[in-house]
């Protein structure tokens, strides 16, 4: 409970740092998502009231941009680039390998233990290294299905070690 209050306080600070400006809504949502890892519905309502617009407008913006998520994400985000260059160099087998390993589907991007979320991105701008995967903020170029399984294994071990 205490944790939740602290986070709400942080959201209030974020709103204040943007002087509750409507034009800063996207930045406010970005910073809020950094606090929670996603955008909880009640927080969206809070933001709407604080900057004086309707909750529907805030929800409209939050659902428009692909960066925002209304559901919790895993601890580690695996982003497989499916831009044109990565696509023609075989990003799909990589995606399949991750799904198979973690028991995910197109409709279920996050593993049950909330450890991993699989996302696809349209282009990371690292086309020279295609296919590219970003796992836990680290960019891996010239990936292979076996390579990504190695990365996942390492991340899993990192968790058990801690």
């Amino acid at each position, binding site marked *: 409970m205490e944790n939740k209050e602290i986070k709400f306080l942080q959201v209030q600070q974020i709103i204040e740092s943007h002087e509750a*400006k*409507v*034009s*800063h*809504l*996207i*930045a406010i*949502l*970005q910073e809020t998502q950094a606090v929670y890892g996603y955008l909880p519905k009640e927080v969206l309502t809070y933001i709407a009231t604080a900057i004086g617009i309707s909750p529907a407008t805030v929800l*409209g*913006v939050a659902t*428009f*941009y*692909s*960066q*925002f998520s209304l559901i919790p994400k895993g601890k580690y985000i695996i982003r497989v680039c*499916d*831009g*044109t*260059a*990565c*696509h*023609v*160099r075989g990003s799909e087998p990589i995606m399949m390998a991750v799904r198979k390993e973690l028991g995910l589907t197109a409709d279920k991007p996050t593993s049950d233990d909330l450890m991993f979320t699989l996302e696809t*991105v*349209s*282009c*990371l*701008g*690292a*086309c*020279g*290294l*295609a296919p*590219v995967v970003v796992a836990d903020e*680290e*960019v*891996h*170029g010239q990936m292979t299905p076996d390579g990504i399984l190695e990365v996942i294994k390492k991340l899993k071990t990192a968790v058990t070690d801690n």
Partner: protein
Amino acid sequence: MLIKTHEDLKKLSEKAKAALEQYKSRILVCAGTGCVANGSLKVYDALVKMVKEKGLLVEVDLVEEVGHDNVGVTKSGCHGFCQMGPLVRFEPSGLLYCKVKEEDVEEIVNTTVVNNGVIERLLYEDPNTGEKITTQDENPFYKRQVRVTLRYCGRIDPENIYDYIAHRGYRALSKVLQEMTPETVIKEITESGLRGRGGGGFPTGRKWSFAAAQPGPKKYVICNGDEGDPGAFMDRSVMEGNPHSVLEGMMIAGFAIGADEGYIYARAEYPLAIKRMRKAIADAEAHGLLGENILGTGFNFKIHIKEGAGAFVCGEETALIASIEGERGMPRPRPPFPAVKGLWGCPTIINNVETLANLRYIINNGAALFKSYGTATSAGTKTFALAGQVQNTGLVEVPMGMTLREVVFDIGGGLRDGKKYKSVQIGGPSGGCLTEENLDLPLDYDELLKVGAMVGSGGLVVMGEDTCMVETAKFFMGFVQNESCGKCVPCREGTKQLLALLTKITEGKGTEDDLVLLEELAQNVKAGSLCGLGKTAPNPVLTTLRYFRDEYLAHVRDKKCPAGACQALKEYYIDPEKCKGCTVCARVCPANAITGDKKQPHVINVELCLKCGACMEKCKFGSIIIR
């Protein structure tokens, strides 16, 4: 340190340049996104440590006097040859090392830094001739390029404002403020023939003159860094490699139209570019090059950064404005054009990163020199992101009008893994797929439009014989369908139906009537959509239908995918000659579609086969083939 006058800037520029020339050698380690991913920062740290141990290193600070024996080690922006990274370049010799690892650093310091020797194994090897290439200028990847926008990307430290100033940085701004009027600036840019590098190719000078003619007092300059086209990364590289050139361009544009405030709208997927742009703004402000009364001329300019949140449509001008205003990024009908009524209802010009980065060159060197590159209607150079199944991938800048063949084969070195060339996709989801016959087409705005493609932001994705063009059209349609904002019906519903038709065809369920419907619908979406996204979304479909009709027909008539790429049309088959009957395939098959006795050739039941490819992956004898 505040730079208060033109004289201050000139003096600092000369001083920094002299300081730079004092270095015996300067080592530039590429710290663009690609090379960082391959571990270039470790190489940099190791180099700094080891050069220091030799008692040689001086931080490249460019303001203080340094001794003549010193070696500077600097992190630079993207060198463009991402695939061969991490790249390490030596100045002044131009020696270029590729794929440098942390372990190589000791040898580099001992052999190259101390004794001026060359380490053969770190040189680039031409894949076609096997020849080792010593310097960047002799490298076939760089040799044919003409670098205007990218001139200093990879040559300077993007996080050091003095490095930019040493290379005549902000001198174009100084010239504009000192010697020119808004009218003469617009005239110069108009004469240069510069056209928008973001996609449409609208003449920059004309765009500015519209905004300049509007009454003030409040006007805006927006830098469009929302590089959403999959397969294009020139704007990222410019922002990462030479951020000050973008700021200088924005200020020149601001002076020309009478704006005092600017926004940079950058993709959130480009964290490094955003970080470097932020640092550049802070440094320029700290030196008085941004803010109030710049260079004592009374010209004021402020720049903010807005991070995008992942919406391709925000690359469209009016959607981008809506996004800066904090709303859903949906396009608005034009007119009124942003030059008349843009951000918060004020006259606004929106220029792409690459367009802005060209401005200093035009102002410094004159419209005539800029125009001497390129073709009659497309002046200057253009940066293309060369990617896909080509030997050399990376960023290339060439004069407009160079042929596709020269870019793909001379600079790109042809296809990789001995594949046969099939197509090149140009201009991202708004562009088109071109064939072998189009290879001799000059790359300029108008020539590409004639064949149904467009320059777009400059993504060039090379495809080999094993790429299915129907699947490629489906891939792009999936992308635009996903990114359609939903405001207008032709785009929202049309792209959905186009995608459904293409999916049907790739699954082998299409008919010849579907091809007719596909073409008709594509034309309607093109004609009826509100913004550029919808208007250009059918281009990949239309160009593939036009140039690769045979492939569509093979899918609908024979239910075959000639490239062997469409999952549903694949047929797995076990070659009885090669099969040893090891039973591995039968055990991994999730559908139990493979049967056979031990040590006897196995068979796949096509009815049960899921076409997952698991058997093929595990077969040690290469006996499973797709036909």
